[in-house]
């Protein structure tokens, strides 16, 4: 195997795949990058067995062939080189050599046939999404995922295809975030799959600002085609919770408030809350609300009042301020609308206005309050 390539192009392709290489692994082969030089194209592949990343780059290929070589080492040496022509060659016993104007670097490689196979994807359902939409679909849900490995389904984001629509859902049992997106370009079929947060974070990192991404869902894996890069991710093979059950069909009171004003206020007040419970209280009164927090252990206390649009009953509701801040941060609209039932019931939140083909909804469970 022999090819030559400009450093910048090689480095760009390496950067895309190198972060998939696991820090520790019981399978030492996963520490490698699989390089395949065929038909004028160099393919780079890494895997941690959950996620497989493949990128392509054009190269001048003298002899076709494949090799598995230590991924971080190749990445690091190429990173330190200036933009010169590099020539790479490997012999039959997988000893590789990288040559530049500066000198040569010998790297011990391994038999490429021992490298884990690319996941087979048959009977794939494909959807095409504008990058900007895909980014929103992930971003508006992923923050609500659970970290509890004992409930694997909740550690991922549910992708639910419906009639010309796609919904992403994430929940950790305390809060739920979902974005519904409608488009005629989406297929008319019912289908759902759970993608891990790790895979989606890789997708987010590799998405270009514009353009489209094709996502294919197979029986056990999904694949995202992002320009010259493809990401294969194992699906979380679990049943997702029936999230519709927790969304209350009717609510009693609506409250509209300026998103950034409330977020800034909650940020300030929560500095005075007990660091363990992170509890902030919202006291709702006609057309104004009071945000307060106190830390009995250390004697800190804070109180702020802001205007809002509210005609319902007066009551006090408590939240974990971190959850409340997460929620507000994911509202792009200048105004947020809360739909409330009771101080111990889930609260719904929507952006004040949103694109016609989107429906963003968040649910947050309050904190139990005693004798307020």
């Amino acid at each position, binding site marked *: 195997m022999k090819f030559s390539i400009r450093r910048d192009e090689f480095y760009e392709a390496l950067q895309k795949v190198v972060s998939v290489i696991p820090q520790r692994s019981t399978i030492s082969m996963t520490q490698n990058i699989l390089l395949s030089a065929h038909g004028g194209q160099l393919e780079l592949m890494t895997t941690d067995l959950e996620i497989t990343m493949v990128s392509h780059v054009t190269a001048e290929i003298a002899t076709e062939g494949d090799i598995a070589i230590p991924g971080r080492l190749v990445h690091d040496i190429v990173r330190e080189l200036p933009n010169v022509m590099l020539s790479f060659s490997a012999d039959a016993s997988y000893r590789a050599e990288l040559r530049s104007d500066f000198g040569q670097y010998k790297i011990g490689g391994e038999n490429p046939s021992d490298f884990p196979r690319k996941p087979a994807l048959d009977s794939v359902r494909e959807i095409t999404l504008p990058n900007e939409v895909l980014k929103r679909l992930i971003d508006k849900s992923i923050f609500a995922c659970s970290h*509890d490995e*004992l*409930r694997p389904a909740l550690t991922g984001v549910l992708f639910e295809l419906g009639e010309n629509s796609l919904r992403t859902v994430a*929940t950790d*049992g*305390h809060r*739920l975030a979902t974005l519904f997106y409608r488009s005629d370009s989406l297929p008319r079929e019912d289908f759902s799959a759970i993608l891990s947060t790790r895979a989606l974070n890789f997708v987010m990192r590799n998405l270009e600002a514009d353009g489209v991404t094709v996502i294919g869902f197979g029986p056990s894996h999904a694949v995202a085609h992002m320009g010259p890069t493809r990401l294969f991710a194992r699906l979380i093979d679990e049943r997702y919770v029936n999230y519709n059950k*927790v969304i209350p069909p009717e609510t009693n009171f609506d409250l509209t408030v300026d998103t950034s004003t409330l977020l800034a206020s909650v940020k300030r007040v929560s500095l005075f809350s007990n660091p*363990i*419970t992170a*509890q902030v209280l919202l006291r709702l009164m006609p057309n104004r609300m009071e945000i307060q927090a106190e830390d009995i252990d250390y004697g800190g206390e804070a109180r702020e009042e802001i205007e809002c649009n509210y005609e319902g009953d007066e009551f006090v509701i*408590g939240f*974990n301020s971190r959850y409340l801040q997460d929620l507000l941060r994911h509202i792009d609209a200048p105004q947020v609308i809360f739909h409330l039932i009771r101080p*111990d019931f*889930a609260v719904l939140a929507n952006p004040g206005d949103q694109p016609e083909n989107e429906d963003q909804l968040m*649910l947050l*469970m*309050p*904190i*139990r*309050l005693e004798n307020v």
Partner: protein
Amino acid sequence: MPVFHIDADAFFAAVEQGFNPALRGRPVVVGGSEDQRGVVHTASYEARALGIRTGMPLATAKRLCPAAVFLKGNYQHYQAASRTLQEIYLRYTPAVEFTSLDDAYLDFHGCEGLYSSWEGIAREIQQAVGAALGITVSIGIAANKLLARIASGQNKPAGVFAIPPGQEGDFLRPLCISELPGVGRKTRALLNDMGIERIGQLAKMPAVILCQLLGENGRKIWQYANGRDPREVQIRILPGQISRSTTFEEDLTETEVVMATFQYLGERIAATLRGQQQRCRKVEISIRYSDFSAQQASGTLRTPSDSAACIFTEARKLLDKTHLRRLRIRHVGIAVREIEWQTPQLTFEEEDRRSEELNLAVDHIRERFGFMAILPADTLVLQSRYRIEKNGYVLHAPALTR
């Protein structure tokens, strides 16, 4: 010198003597009545003088001192006494850490300006405890928890022992290595084989050698040997585990009794967890057979729980999975691990909220009418085997009946 370690002297026995003046001055053994199987839990100083020790079979104790008063003990009394201790300690400093009912650390950091003499305060605490409960406590005063703990053991009973700052090394050097926490029987034997008997010898060794010998524990022991202890006095601490177990009056084979006992123990654990506003994630069951062989199994709950139903369901699952030996069962126990604080954060799950409301109602009933006022029906089979008191079945090792 801002850390006190206060240890009550022969706590359970002393509380009994405090409640009942007729017992004062007599050898008292708490652990069970003399004809029961079981071991001495606490012996009063009068009984200790006759050679009775904690952990000794009751029958042996009886032989050593036929005149001793054998008591089954009452956990509620001890708990109440412990609360009184806590109230007294809190008058002096807000940082009080109880490591057991009778054993507490008091942190006086930042209180230096308030008190003129640490020994004076210690004497004052001893008097207050004596007046309130009629028991004596031993107090160790030192720079950290480790030294305070060793100091409190120096002058028992009713002693006050202070290690002046700067003299920690001199104090520790001649002591036997088994005084250090983390040096148990095995470690001691290992070190003795190398000719190390005194803490001073241990302190002089390079830390690396102890690390190689004993792993992480070695580093800790070396630190302790040099009088260093990074642990802080913690006001609220999570227990590593909560366990309840019982030895049957007679070894038995009936599955429904074993099951009912597990369920009853699960109820007790859950009540404790809720009382401490904690919940657990892991459940472990243990079974000991008539030939003293034992089996254990543990499992993880889907979500952290403080509900007896959850704990028992897991225990039953574990029991079903365990291949029980065809022997009589002598002893059963449940332990819960990975304990964390309850959070007031509500969840979406309806089941959680229903069980939470149920538990709340159960706790209210028990608060008014005692623990036995409401129990799962399956535990009723225990009625024919154990005497019922308002606050629980009188199980075999009654001093430990929590």
